[in-house]
């Protein structure tokens, strides 16, 4: 199954390439167990099984996004985003020199100043989660742009969904 192995290897490479500062360490270049170069030697009965090892799920692995999206008329974090916010909290808690600006946004529907309020409510959701998980108040500022800085143009639900967001911007 040489092709299959090649795909696995490529995915692994992509995965590693996408890791941020807290990524798993680069694999030892000498370790070619998953290298595609091995394809030619792949024949029946080749070698025995190694000892293997258990793998833990590591929530700090993978690319850390700086944008949190929200449902229509909601300032609740989506379940899948709690880990993302937790990782930002860990970064902030672990480095008091870091600071963030939380930029809240709303979709374009309705009144502009009320939308400022909706964007701020979303920023505050993220702020509270960061504080609970160890970031300090001095590290966090919030601003709401309401509907004034849309990420996506257009007046349909897919544009609205991209605009209901909080952007976590590191300022230090």
């Amino acid at each position, binding site marked *: 199954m040489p092709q299959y192995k090649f795909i696995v290897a490529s995915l692994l490479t992509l995965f590693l390439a996408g890791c941020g500062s807290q990524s798993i360490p680069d694999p030892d270049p000498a370790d070619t167990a998953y290298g595609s170069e091995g394809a030619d030697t792949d024949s029946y009965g080749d070698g025995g099984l190694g000892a293997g090892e258990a793998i833990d799920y590591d929530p700090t692995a993978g690319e850390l996004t700086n944008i949190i999206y929200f449902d229509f008329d909601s300032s609740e974090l989506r379940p899948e985003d709690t880990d993302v916010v937790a990782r930002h909290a860990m970064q902030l808690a672990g480095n008091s020199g870091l600071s963030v600006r939380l930029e809240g946004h709303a979709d374009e529907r309705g009144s502009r100043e009320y939308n*400022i*309020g909706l964007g*701020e409510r979303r920023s505050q959701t993220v702020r509270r989660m960061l504080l609970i998980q160890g970031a300090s108040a001095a590290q966090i500022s919030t601003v709401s742009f309401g509907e004034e800085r849309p990420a996506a143009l257009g007046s349909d639900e897919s544009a609205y969904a991209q605009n209901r967001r909080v952007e976590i911007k590191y300022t230090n």
Partner: protein
Amino acid sequence: MLKNIVSTLLIAALLLGTVRAELDIEITQGAGKRTPVAVVPFGWDSTTSDMPLDVAEVISNDLTRSGRFAPIAVDDMLQKPVDGADVDFDDWSILGVEAVVVGRVTQTGDNSYSVQFQLFDVFGRDQLVGYRMPASRGTMRRVAHRAADMIYEKLTGIKGVFDTKVAYVTAQPRGDGKLYSLIVSDQDGENEFTIMESTDPIMSPAWSPDSRRLAYVSFENNKSSIFVQTLRTGNRIQVSSKPGINGAPAFSPDGRQLVITLGGIDGNLDIYVLDINSREAKRVTTHRAIDTEGSWSPDGRHIYFTSDRSGGPQIYRVSVTGSSPERVTFEGSYNARPRLSPDGSRLAMVHNDRGNFRIAVLDMRRNDLLVLSTGGQDESPSFAPNSDTLIYATRQGRDGVLETVSADGLIRQRLASGQGDVREPVWSPFQRF
């Protein structure tokens, strides 16, 4: 001098490429019957120079734009008198014209003129109003609008608002982002003047009662601040820049205070009254909901505001001392951005009308709600100082454009812009000379 284009939808479409004024006006919906009138070209006594401004054309355009009058073409006129004594009522009666305006401009000095006009009732064969006003080249357009205001009031019983201004915000693509501009123009789109420009958003302009200052929100340096800027000098002062949200300013009727929204570090938006001189902010509402978009009652004793304390946004009223907030709107799931008419009789708002955000007006005495606009994303209603007309923002394709509508919903005009996305129009108070 920018050329004013006033026309029907069709003609506006044909001329669109040649237009230079930022806002061009087309009447999209007029009153059932428009009264035929005549504005005769004004007399001018000099043979060595041209009249500084075609005053009759300005008056005629104003009357046309009101949606209530149909001035006849100059070519159709059987006589062109410049003095009341020369008006032949039979000549106008034959044409079916109900009212005639005549007048003249006289030069009285190097840069001083006298503008006089007379309005006649053709059937009554009588003068309704006559007036003479001093003017300079710089003020002549305002003098013409002032004459149109007097003519309009005599013929309709409603104060004219031709000599007023509109402030609005535009956003145009600039590099990776946008250039936001705060602009003031005459209400017919002429004389647009950029008050402030920024690559960060500008929001929520508000006129002072004397029309000399604008308050607005600016996001310079990635935080919101409230500024008050004097139009004549361009000087501006930052009046509120507290942590968190500083937003939604509106001048008190005496011009000394602003109602504003502050969010604080924990982002709980509440209504405050800010003394402009002392910068002292007094809290008016205390609620964990979003309280914002404060607006004064004409007597300065109450503040109307948007709050989602009941779940969705609705409009509430509270005394400036903060006591006993009461809910004002009950129809529909979304009512926001209250603005009371200067006469206190009507409350304009953004209303969710079966999924469309539209401008609606609540009759405060009869307590019924009239939806005035027809778009899906209409916002920012603002009353003209005569309480008879509103201006608001609507969408044309992706861009915002401005529309005006009479408070009874019968007459509607679109002010098409040549410059990107136009939003947040606010109508000035009556101007003083």
